[in-house]
């Protein structure tokens, strides 16, 4: 994939400078701060997070309460209204969209982070072990990755839905499980070049065990790659979640996610209730787009060539 070459470079650069000192991260931070788009994206994302955290304080309805008085005429009286406390209007069933968007945004963010975390942890460890141990083991482990890469991810996702259908977070652990492949390849490549460095040789000569070397010396040196990759993976997983919700197989009611709200809103656009699509879609786009900007910004900041 595209990221691969640049990731390589980032990793090389980081390991080179790692030995010299910590100034690299300061450098990167300085470069990141100069990237106006990325800084703007950070602010936007922080605002979204703040909304999720502080927003409930202003909500007059919970995310599951039905407004019985208005539920029969959502198109007529359910539009956004400050007076009755439905700031974002009502959903199809007469529930407060403001409270639901807050809860949905939270869910989507958590899902993205959990999924990315799982996939990064697995990918890093797998790649580091394969690269460091080398030989037959490496060959076998990477063949396995090749095979898994040929499995259509749709198939895996749908089967996971069938098997973990009732446990939402399990499902995203599952999605994380299938998106670690690429990460493991990048990490393996890096580890291969790291294992003959002086500091690794020194550790080995001092009798440090394999596990310890991988965890204490190899993994920390891959931090840059991990950070960049994770920042690009979070929005991808949020997008995957929205597709699953579209298939109707996402989070269990009354909880909801942005994907579920958008897919419900898209089904009703011609029914005179545009707000049901507009609010969740805006939060979705702002979240994803700012994550894209941040991811790109991080990559540029950590990539020495892209000054």
């Amino acid at each position, binding site marked *: 994939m595209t990221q691969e070459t640049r990731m390589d470079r980032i990793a090389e650069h980081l390991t080179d400078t790692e030995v010299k000192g910590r100034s690299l991260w300061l450098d990167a931070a300085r470069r990141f701060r100069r990237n106006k788009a990325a800084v703007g994206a950070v602010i936007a994302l922080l605002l979204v997070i703040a909304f999720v955290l502080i927003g409930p304080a202003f909500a007059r309805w919970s995310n599951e309460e*039905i407004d019985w008085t208005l539920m029969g005429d959502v198109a007529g009286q359910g539009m956004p209204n400050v007076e009755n406390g439905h700031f974002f209007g009502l959903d199809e069933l007469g529930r407060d969209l403001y409270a639901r968007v807050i809860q949905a945004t939270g869910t989507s963010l958590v899902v993205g982070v959990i999924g990315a975390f799982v996939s990064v942890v697995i990918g890093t460890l797998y790649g580091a072990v394969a690269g460091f141990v080398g030989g037959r083991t490496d060959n076998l482990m990477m063949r396995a990755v090749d095979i898994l890469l040929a499995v259509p991810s749709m198939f895996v996702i749908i089967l996971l*839905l069938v098997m973990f*259908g009732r446990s939402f977070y399990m499902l995203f652990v599952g999605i994380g499980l299938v998106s670690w492949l690429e990460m493991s390849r990048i990490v393996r490549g890096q580890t291969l070049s790291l294992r003959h460095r002086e500091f690794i040789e020194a550790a080995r000569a001092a009798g440090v065990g394999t596990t310890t070397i991988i965890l204490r010396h190899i993994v920390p040196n891959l931090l840059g790659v991990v950070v960049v990759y994770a920042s690009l993976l979070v929005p991808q997983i949020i997008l995957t979640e929205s597709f699953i919700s579209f298939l109707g*197989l996402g989070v269990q009611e009354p909880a909801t996610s942005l994907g579920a709200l958008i897919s419900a809103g898209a089904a009703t656009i011609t029914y005179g209730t545009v707000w049901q699509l507009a609010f969740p879609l805006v939060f979705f786009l702002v979240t994803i787009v700012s994550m894209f900007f941040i991811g790109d910004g991080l990559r540029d900041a950590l990539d020495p060539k892209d000054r």
Partner: protein
Amino acid sequence: MTARIQSLSAVLLASTVLAGAIAGPLAAQGTAPNGDKLADDQTLTIRMLDEQSSLDPQLIEDVSGSDIARQLFEGLTNQDADGKLTPGVAESWDVSEDKLTYTFHLRDAKWSNGDPVTADDFVYAWQRAADPATASEYQWFIGLMSIKNADAVIKGEMKPSELGIRAVDPKTFEVTLSSPIPYFPQMTSHTTTYPAPKKVIEEFGEQWTAPEHIVSNGAYKLSEHVPNERTVAVKNENYWDAANVKIEKFVTLVINDESQALTRFQSGELDRTEMPAGQFPRMQKEHPEEAVSFPRLCNYYYTFNVSDSGPEAFKDVKVRQALSLAIDRDIITKNVLAGGQPPAYTFTPAATANFVMPDVEAAKMTQAERDAKAKELLTEAGYGPDNPLKFDMLYNTSEDHQKIAVAMSQMWKQKLGVQATLANQEWKTFLDTRSQQAFDMARGAWCGDYNEASTFLDLLTTSSGSNDGKYSNPEVDKLMLDARTAADPQADYTKVEEIIADEMPVIPVYHYAGVYMLDTDVGNWPVNNVEQNWYVKDMWKKAE
């Protein structure tokens, strides 16, 4: 002595043909039976939710498949606009005094390739449906028809040729039953009982229903089939009543998404589409002539798991009563679905033929009274704020089921402090979970296989394979068994409903309505046929 049943409609039909012949040039092609002026383009286009699983009459197991096959093939009998039985390939039929032998007298009908339709075609088709080698899911239907030796044939203990049917002569088809069943003639309008062209099936095997191979005996013949896109049928000139068939071309389009289908209806691409839940009032206001709603022969309910694996609380009839009473069915039917569905207090829909509604107390109370009673009952059962009732409610993935489940759980929560956790599963997993009693409370729905209360009430008997809540009451079982042979089974059905209202093993929520957008130029859509067995041959397109 045999009692001869001659259908009134057959006489009427004959007289229309005669009138047409006399009127000659006046009744030219431009007029429908009711005097409507016909449009030049006689094409009827209808949305289907899903691709049909098959067009082979004996294999069909879904609504899309039977809706199309009903146009391509014709069985012994048909239904008219009100769901009453009319002659199809059989002009008339007799029943023996012991009600065990039916004799059908066939008319001069032809297959689309010109061959005559004979009693042997029916014998072949019915044997084929029962034959284990065909492996039809609808073998059970042959079993349900109680044809002699049916069960043994299905089990493989007897040869299909030993099934209790025979061709007396090419025009006479005789059926022997193992026990008399009052609704047997109605069952002969079902797709499973349609004739099958032996020659074609033997030549092409499973591919015989492909447009290039298929031979059918109905008013239409298949001309094009693109799976998951469209199926097109054109008028069959060899059909015995082709002169009275107005629609020239019948098209079904597969559109999964109902709001997408509605948009396409509004763009004029469809003549009929399903109304999305909640949209009926708005569409009725904007297009009063196109939005239609009429009762259907289906119910919608939640079943308690009263088996050993179910929660202890549901074994207490007071808890079941309380939960049922606290549901405001008017809100669900008026505000959530809003398509003219009747709220349900009985398991059997009121639209069922000859069904006498029992006196159900809950139906007469106001919602406030029901709520008060519900609180009282639940407190008596020992549940309250200190000891809240908790359970899972299971439904299958779908926007509409979700809305109803959310509304119900909120009603319980706000009125009774009951904590119902929603759980949706995709269809197959849901069915699996439900059939293994791995649930507390689960959604269910049932559409009548034929228009009689037993098709619903049999579900609550101990031996029913679809009784997933495992409710068991010997009295209900006995009443349902008696009803099979009773002169007037309706009293038994009413009695069973009273027992159900008392013991509340299921919560009836509402009864279905057919809610559609139907183009105003479609003439004679049978809105009064509660089973929605419609025949394109009886419809026409009006000129604007």
